[in-house]
């Protein structure tokens, strides 16, 4: 199964995988890496390359900062 890494990862053999790289592992290893949050599954036709590709991540919404109404406008 081919996956795209969303963060850097180094295997126990010292092979460095950078964020954005597409890598092919066997299905069991890919499932472990996905479950660990290291990568996401990509299409089987994706070419495994060392090129950073766009990785879309959801931005965590932040609560709006309350602003004290200091308006002095009067009707």
């Amino acid at each position: 199964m081919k996956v795209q890494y969303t963060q850097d990862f180094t295997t126990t053999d010292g092979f460095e995988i950078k964020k954005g790289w597409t890598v092919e592992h066997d299905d069991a290893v890919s499932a472990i890496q996905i479950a660990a949050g290291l990568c996401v599954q990509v299409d089987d036709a994706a070419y495994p390359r060392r090129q950073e590709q766009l990785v879309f991540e959801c931005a965590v919404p932040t609560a709006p900062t309350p602003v004290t109404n200091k308006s002095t406008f009067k009707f």
Partner: protein
Amino acid sequence: MPGTTGTVLAKAMKLYVGTTTPVAITCQVDASISMSTNMIQTSCKDSGADGSYLPGEKSWTASGSGNFAFDATYGWSQLFAAWKDQTIVAVVFQNTVVGDKKYSGNTYITSLSANSSGNDEAVTFDFELQGTGALVEATIS
């Protein structure tokens, strides 16, 4: 575990590099492993007409070829580095079907070549790996 029923197709049978997190060699075209046993001749002047032998040292090799790309995740550049530095390359020969067998072991690169033939062909690379130590069979889980 069920595994493949009938003939195993070549498309998914590949060489992977690594131990705990193996990575497939990128854009493979051919992949193979080969095992052999050196046979020690034990026939002598007292033997009859038929030769006799005992099995000696076992050895194994792996080899393959692929399409050449400088930006491959694991391709020519990584194999070249392993050849230049004479480092051990742990390989696994397998498909991805749970219940099928996989074969793994440590190797050194004994041969590596890049080929640019003709004018309308992809550049390719070939490699040969000499196994050192045992070739281990296991079940894909």
